[in-house]
């Protein structure tokens, strides 16, 4: 079999897997609604819409509750597959529009956090490894151990106390200064200022993880033969580390970062709600509070798609860069 064909088979398998995950989520959504006490319409309407018979009637129609269960299930599958996610009673807009409107903010936050965690984590790990058995290493590892154990939302609150309230360096919440009407570069700078704390908070746990991973990885690489060769031909230490070890050592960090996109989406729910960052996570938090469950289910559906797409992109990149993965 040719490599190109194997590559295609591999990617197709992963694509199928992503579709299956999303399908599983939709199915779980449907049965969760039926598991809850009361019929799905009254569950969905919750406390927010309970007093509004029109809304409940609309929901009953949307779910076709007078039909047999399997018909309802197929109807639900079909509607979800065609991105018909219903209407939000609370926000007075279609759920799809609401979600699509919040997607860019979440993507910005997540992409920043991924970059930040890989960059800072691998730098700190590299420094810890080459400054082995010094106080620098001890200090870095100590910070990493603490950051690894801290609840994200709590760290975010503490950053707000320190950097926004006490020092007044950075804004406490939101994505841009309300009413400032900035445009162009000034707007970008304003958003960047608002992004610093949420992105750093979201990446904190991953920075800790990658620091430790990178340190182990660098130490392992330093004991390999190619480093001995480089040393024996008289290459200076700095060039060995930056030119050879760094590239090899960072691979496990990148692999790990790719795997953790799903986890980061979960972290963004709490981080966004702490910082009032107007993304999917904050929308999930708001819909949770107004008991707008249909919207919440839509967000989970979109989250699953987001993770599946991200995983697929990573798989394709890997299959292109390193043919060994598809042969496993």
């Amino acid at each position, binding site marked *: 079999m040719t490599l190109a064909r194997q590559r295609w088979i591999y990617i197709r398998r992963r694509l199928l*897997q992503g579709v299956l995950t999303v399908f599983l989520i939709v199915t779980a959504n449907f049965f969760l609604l039926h598991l809850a006490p009361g019929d799905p319409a009254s569950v969905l309407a919750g406390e927010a819409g309970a007093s509004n018979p029109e809304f409940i009637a609309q929901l009953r129609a949307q779910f076709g509750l007078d039909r047999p269960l399997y018909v309802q299930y197929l109807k639900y599958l079909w509607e979800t597959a065609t991105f018909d996610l219903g209407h939000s009673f609370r926000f007075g807009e279609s759920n799809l529009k609401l979600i699509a409107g919040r997607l860019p903010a979440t993507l910005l936050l997540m992409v920043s956090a991924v970059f930040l965690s890989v960059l800072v984590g691998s730098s700190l790990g590299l420094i810890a490894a080459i400054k082995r058995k010094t106080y620098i290493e001890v200090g870095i590892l100590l910070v990493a151990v603490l950051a690894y154990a801290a609840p994200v939302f709590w760290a975010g609150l503490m950053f707000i106390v320190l950097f926004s309230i006490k020092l007044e360096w950075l804004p406490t919440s939101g994505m841009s200064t309300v009413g400032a009407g900035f445009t162009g570069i000034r707007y970008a700078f304003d958003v960047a200022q608002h992004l610093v704390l949420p992105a750093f908070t979201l990446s904190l746990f991953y920075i800790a993880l990658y620091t430790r991973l990178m340190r182990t990885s660098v130490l392992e690489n330093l004991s390999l033969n190619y480093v001995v060769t480089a040393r024996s031909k008289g290459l200076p230490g700095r060039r060995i580390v930056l030119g050879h070890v760094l590239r090899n050592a960072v691979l496990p960090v990148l692999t790990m970062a790719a795997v953790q996109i799903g986890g980061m989406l979960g972290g963004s729910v709490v981080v966004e709600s702490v910082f009032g960052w107007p993304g999917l996570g904050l929308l999930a938090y708001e819909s949770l509070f107004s008991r707008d469950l249909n919207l919440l289910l839509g967000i989970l559906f979109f989250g699953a798609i987001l993770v599946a797409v991200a995983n697929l992109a990573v798989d394709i990149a890997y299959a292109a860069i390193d043919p060994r993965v598809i042969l496993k």
Partner: protein
Amino acid sequence: MSAGGDSLAQRLRLNALLVAGGILLVGVVALAVLAGVLYPEDPFDMVGQPFRPPMSEDFPLGTDSLGRDIAAGIAHGARISLIIGIITALMSTLLGVLVGSIAGYYGGRIDTLLMRTTELFQTIPSFLFAIVVLAVLQPSIYTVIFAIVVVSWAPLARLVRGEVVSLRNREFVLGCVALGMSDLQIIIRQILPNALPSIVVAASVAVASSILFESGLSFLGLGDPNVMSWGLMIGMGRSVIRTAWWVAAVPGVAVLVTVLAINLLGDGLNEALNPRSASNFSGR
């Protein structure tokens, strides 16, 4: 790492990890056990003036916006954190051992089917999924445990499967097969004891991550509303963060110390039980 010269230093480091983690954890467990003795009143009761800062008389950790004793909340919250951490880790580990050992031992189609299922569960956005489960079903200790177990058994299953596969064709196992031992006996009495060190370490990591997970859920108001928990306390302190930062800060430190203790113990156990493993992480 070179052997010999390093071994004493390594052993000391190992002991330091285990001792530090152990002392911290014993402290948290003692607090949880003695919560009813130290603070017999309901931690939801108002016992003093609101917003007393830490180190004030009668209230070493201060009071919150409703005049509740933060120290009492911390002591009672320790219970729920530990109970949820331990029960979910045990259940996830049992499920992981069950699925992983069947997949690894029998191989073939069963293996493929079970591992594909496991991968599916691993790609679910876990926190969002747990939020939805708890928002639809009413939050209680049972639903919180259910939600956490559903999203955390998969990595354990993969780990166990890997261990079982590597042990499956070793001579002592093949010997048992030749002697006519049943599959169940071989798995339980021969294979799993050899995989135990890795399973124990992964289970300890699972306790720590469940505690973090639970604190996140109760921070969002998805914990059992009748039980005082650290996440709930942080959530309640959030609205008064400008005037009384300690209301949110103190319970966060409690979570951090507990998770830190378990992680240190886990790292120590890992170095003691799997001395050659390069990484201490089982991944999340």
